């Protein structure tokens, strides 16, 4: 990986390039990463090293550092980053051209995209061409969004399309053929192609763009969205660069390779120690690995550093929901609502809060609002499905889950929810289809296996062999609720295989001992094992179990006593046959 200093320089340039071209979210991302790099303690006073925000003096000092720093990037193609090239781009244009550009950019900043494009219509500079194309694209997108509402047909939304795509594609492809295209215009070209559905070409173009200018995170994200399988990811021909690591980490996450993604992020943290983005991503991965404690810690820290952050906070609220932290959740909801109430994440957090409070109607209302803000907001569809399940409105739940699944067919929670809903309606066999889908997507989640096993176990189906298979899978993948072992024992007992049953009771017992849990399962296991050992004439063992049973109050104690008596008697008989 490049040295911290190089990263810093490069990113600093990148922020300027990106914001100069109106690529705001990419520039925001770059700036965030820039701030995430640990400062060199030798150059800066310790008080400034940790969080440098708001300190203009440091910024000024950085700038002076820029001009002296001539460090070229060690990895990737040295394109725009070399300061000399920047100079070429910045100063070679005519002043008139530049004036046009300035006006166009101002219009662009005021979101008057068509005006901006119009002003830049005859400009030939690369920057101007890019801004014009990008403005046109955005204008088309804006119109598309409006038309989506206006053209709502009797049978749902009609598909409004961005009408600029055709002309943009034509222009950009000629530019590319002429070789007069810069990586930013390539990014727009990629966007256009992706929207038009020619994914392979879009992938190639975006790869070209990120290879020549790696700091445009928006291009990476578009590329990531095009890599839906590991094969397509591996087939990309990318130059080595630390941005590639960011990209891969994100892509692994989306492909549900959480451990790989986690290790990538941890590696990146070596350089970008204080990056909020990386922290949030780690939290996401941990969340999917169901390490809620860690996620909570990370988010607490994130909020301390960045109290007005809304991104990813819906996941934090999920964690708080799972841990039933009422007050923390309400605090979070309050805070995000004051920050920006019309963000889907905010609505989702409030929905979660009401759900935790058991007010499902209100919760549904907020999820609906989240969906109104973003129709493809996956989490909200799934969570709304959960709410409907709680409200026993199964058909509405099915509908919501199905929409989630159609948005992202890899959402195992929604598949699981569908299965659950159908099971509630007394259709276990039908539900199996959905459970199968969900375990296929998330084969290491014991809860899914247990749900499927319970489905097989239902009175109507009563397919115990299949249930046993599922419970075995559940037991093999870290079954937190410790249902599987107990159920396995019970099922084997029901099928008359006492040896297997004893084996699983014993394993269950060991587990409970290891986790120091008590409860009815413990008694049940001990009771069975005591009886089993007695019938198998393993009296010593039986005695051990019986004595342990004596610790419990209630009928078990009496049973244990009588068992002990029986054991002694049998032993006597054995020793002194009459």
């Amino acid at each position: 990986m490049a040295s911290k200093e190089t990263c810093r320089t490069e990113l600093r340039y990148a922020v300027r390039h990106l914001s100069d071209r109106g690529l705001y979210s990419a520039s925001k991302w770059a700036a965030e990463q820039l701030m995430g790099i640990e400062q060199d303690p030798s150059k800066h006073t310790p008080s400034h090293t940790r969080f440098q925000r708001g300190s203009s003096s440091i910024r000024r000092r950085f700038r002076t550092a820029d001009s002296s720093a001539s460090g070229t990037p060690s990895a990737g193609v040295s394109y725009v980053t070399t300061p000399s090239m920047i100079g070429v781009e910045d100063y070679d244009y005519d002043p008139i051209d530049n004036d046009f550009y300035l006006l166009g950019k101002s219009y662009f900043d005021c979101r008057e995209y068509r005006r901006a494009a119009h002003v830049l219509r005859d400009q030939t500079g690369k920057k101007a061409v890019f801004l014009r194309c990008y403005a046109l694209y955005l204008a088309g997108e804006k119109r598309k969004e409006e038309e989506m509402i206006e053209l709502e047909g009797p049978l749902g939304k009609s598909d409004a399309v961005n009408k600029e795509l055709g002309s943009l594609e034509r222009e950009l492809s000629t530019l590319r053929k002429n070789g007069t295209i810069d990586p930013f215009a390539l990014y727009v070209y990629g966007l256009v192609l992706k929207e038009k559905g020619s994914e392979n070409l879009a992938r190639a173009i975006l790869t070209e763009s990120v290879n020549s200018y790696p700091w445009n995170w928006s291009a990476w994200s578009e590329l990531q969205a095009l890599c839906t399988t590991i094969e397509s990811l591996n087939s990309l021909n990318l130059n080595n660069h630390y941005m590639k690591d960011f990209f891969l980490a994100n892509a692994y996450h989306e492909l549900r390779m959480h451990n790989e993604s986690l290790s990538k992020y941890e590696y990146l943290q070596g350089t970008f120690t204080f990056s909020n983005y990386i922290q949030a991503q780690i939290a996401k991965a941990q969340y999917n690995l169901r390490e809620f404690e860690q996620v909570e810690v990370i988010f607490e820290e994130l909020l301390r550093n960045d109290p007005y952050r809304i991104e990813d906070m819906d996941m934090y609220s999920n964690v708080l929901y799972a841990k039933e932290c009422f007050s923390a959740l309400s605090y979070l909801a309050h805070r995000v609502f004051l920050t920006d109430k019309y963000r889907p994440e905010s609505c989702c957090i409030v929905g979660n809060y009401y759900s935790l409070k058991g007010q499902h109607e209100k919760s549904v209302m907020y999820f609906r609002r989240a969906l109104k803000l973003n129709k493809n907001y996956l989490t909200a569809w799934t969570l709304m499905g959960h709410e409907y399940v709680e409200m026993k409105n199964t058909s509405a739940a099915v509908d919501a889950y199905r929409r989630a699944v159609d948005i992202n067919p890899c959402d195992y929670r929604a598949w699981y929810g569908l299965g659950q809903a159908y099971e509630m309606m007394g259709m276990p066999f039908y539900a199996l289809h959905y459970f199968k889908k969900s375990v296929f997507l998330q084969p290491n989640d014991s809860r899914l296996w247990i749900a499927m096993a319970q489905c097989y176990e239902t009175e109507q189906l009563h397919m115990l062999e299949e249930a046993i298979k599922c419970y075995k899978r559940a037991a093999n993948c870290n079954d937190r609720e410790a249902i599987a072992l107990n159920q396995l024992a019970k099922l084997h007992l029901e099928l008359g295989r006492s040896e297997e049953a004893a084996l699983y009771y014993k394993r269950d017992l060991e587990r409970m001992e290891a986790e120091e849990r008590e409860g009815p399962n413990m008694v049940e296991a001990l009771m069975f094992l005591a009886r089993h050992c007695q019938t198998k004439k393993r009296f010593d063992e039986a005695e051990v179990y019986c004595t342990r049973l004596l610790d419990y109050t209630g009928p078990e104690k009496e049973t244990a006593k009588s068992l002990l008596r029986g054991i002694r008697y049998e032993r006597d008989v054995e020793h002194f046959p009459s």
Partner: protein
Amino acid sequence: MATGISKSPVSFTLTPHKISICILVQVYAPPSQNSTPFPFSSVSQHNRLGIFILSLTKVSEGIFEPTLDELIAQLSEIGGLLNHWLNDHLTRRLSSLASPDDLFNFFTDLRGILGGSDANVMDDDQIMLDPNSNIGMFTRRCLLAFNQMPFEGICHLLTNIGTYCKDALSSYPPCGISNLDDPTDDPDASLEFENMEMENFVYEKVSDDDDEESSMGIGRIPFHGHGSKAFSELIEDGASSSRPRLEHMDTTALSSSDMPRGIGFNGTFLHTNWQVQGYLSEQANAIEKLGSSFPLNAFESTLRKLQKLAPDLHRVHFLRYLNSLYHDDYPGALENLHRYFDYSAGTEGLEYVPPPSGCSTLGRYESALLCLGMMHFHFGHPKQALEVLTEAVRVSQQYSDDTCLAYTLVAISNLYSEIGISKMSRIIGSSSWPVAGMGTSLSAQQQLFVLLQRSLKRAESYKLKRLVASIHLEIAKYDLTHVQRPLLSFGPKASLKLRTCPPNVHKEIWLSSHLINEFGDESSVMTTEGAFCTAWLKNLKNPTGSLIFTEENENRLNSNVFQFCAQPSSVPGSVLQLLGSSYLVRAASWEMYGSAPLARMNALVYATCFADSSSLSDAALAYSKLIQHLAVYKGYKEAFAALKIAEEKFLCVSKSRILIAKLQLLHECALHRGHLKLAQQLCDELGVLASPVTGVDLELKTEASLRHARTLLAANQYSQAAAVAHSLFCMCYKFNMQVQNATVLLLLAEIHKRSGNAVLGIPYALASLSFCQSFNLDLLKASATLTLAELWLSLGSNHAKKALALLHGSFPMLLGHGGLELRSRAFIMEAKCYLADPSFSVQDDPDMILEPLRQASEELQHLEYHELASEAFYLLAIVYDKLGQLDDREEAASSFKQHITAFENPQEVDNSLSNTL
């Protein structure tokens, strides 16, 4: 079920096409005083425009509204002398709509042509549109939609009208533009010009038609009545009626997918909801009818487009499910089925009957189970199917959905009767089983019978006529192959008669078809009306006003009349299909009972009358029956000729009955000619066609191993043949296929006869006889009697009298209904009996022997059954020898030699046979 972002449903949107219709309506009913308003010269012309407008509002031929080009093309078909004026008017009016205010004025004018609410006030002469007529309603809906439209909507409408006109102009032939631009142009000349162009067009089409009629989709013009191409053959007749439709489907699919619809809105307006639904249900019928020959990808792309444009129209998923189902795409079908029911909760499509209030929020997922069960059944997963259907029974009971319950029960009985029963015991035993209440002492078949009776009662009480009819058919099928026993036998068992009951079967079949006769126009008004309009629009080429087409007019008129008769019948397609299958069952029953002419007749009725409305696979079945009949009664030559025709017709259906029939035919032929290797190969191929799952495709499996045993027998490998027959018997016994067992037993008797073990053979023959008796298999019984007689005779000449008596007893059946082989066997047997009988002398009555032998040899030559033919000639030669007719003897002997060499060297002759493969 709006869990999504809820919105007020706007069911009717204004589109440029609708504006065009409104303009035409204005032309049709201008506020003037004459009975035939200005541009029209006759009342019929006026009416024709009216029907045209009506059809435009109802047509359901695709998902998209036509472009202006298409509309103008159609308009010029009906307009006759007026078409120039009409086109001009239409385009001018459309292009004059340039600002929102123009639209406002247009709709204000439109309101003027609507009559007042009470129609009595107006003058007689004045033309007013009745607001409650179809066209009036349409106009009112347009007005309402316009009034509700926000300003954005009007802007969109304007841009859309712009592109609508522009597209038309840009793709219109240049002469059209000049016509439009130059109003001084002589209208007659232009008319003639256009007609000439039309004629060229027609000519091209015809030549196309001749060149590559099967591949090109020219469905828009029904040209099959043209010229000398009159189909005299019966089979061709069926083909002609189904082909244009197929072609048409291709064209619609193509035209909707190939149209240059880039990003803009040109022509991508959906028809109204009602029309799209009509289109979808028509397509669903077509899929079910055509099976795997339905164009998969073209339709899939149409559906995908439709789904994109109307994401809330969940029926699309159902169509996609159907499409994948009939193309054997299991994952696709499963996925789409689940998706459809997840979205619609079973409350859309199908025969939706709203449930009684109170449980309406729950959805109707039981129908999902029913469909899933049927799907598993279709794919040959009987176990899953039964699981799912059992669940469906439970769920419909739980939500008291009686209709679904009735359908499910019938589906289960279908499943029962189609697949082997032996493996079902586990599920039958379980407590949730619907029949379990009857007690588990019942055999599986009796359970099926109870199930059928119960579903019949249920269906009758809910007045599900179609279901009742199909249950009757199902019961008929059951009665056909099952001996009636009292279900719960209490008291004396004196009345127990172990026979099937043919009158019952026919009573059930009659009941089934009778119920269909009661069918009026139930529940299918929508589709038939839409289909009618579609048909009308498709037949626009029949001009009433134009004189240029006189030459061809008659032919075309005929074809039109034919189509008109076929199209808008008030009986829905599904009912016709049921009625058709009742004829198939009839044919099957007569085939079993052994009446060849009746079986043939019923199959013929089916092929002639119902081939149009039935599914392709059923039609193929009827054809294969007819072909088999030909083979058995007329010899192979004719059968192969017929097969060729059928193969052409059903080329597209994969794994069809025709293929099976072909293999059967070839196998039979190879056996008769003594080409045993080929025969073995053919029967292996037949066996491969069956699914490897046990309990599925039993019919085919029995057939294959029966043929295998016969091949082995022909190769004189008696012990192996017997082993195969034994295992077949065990399988039939296991799956309770008693009727097939009669055949197997007869085969065993035959094997023993051939191996010279007559004593062992007799019990088998007798057993077969008793089976035949109890199942009323008269023809099979006759042939069993024949075998029995042969067995007796082979025991020695002292049994000749007995054998002869047996033979003569079944002579009427054998000669009246038997095929060529059976008849000649009977004749030879008779001759042999006489020859063996010591009390019979040839000299006294030579014709007693000669006549049957001559008959036999003649028929066997037809059949090319060399082995038996050589035997006949041998006997003939002997008899002639005894009679001293040396010339005749020599002739017979040479024929004998000929056949015996052909039999022993099959390869030389049989190249032709293997070529047909």
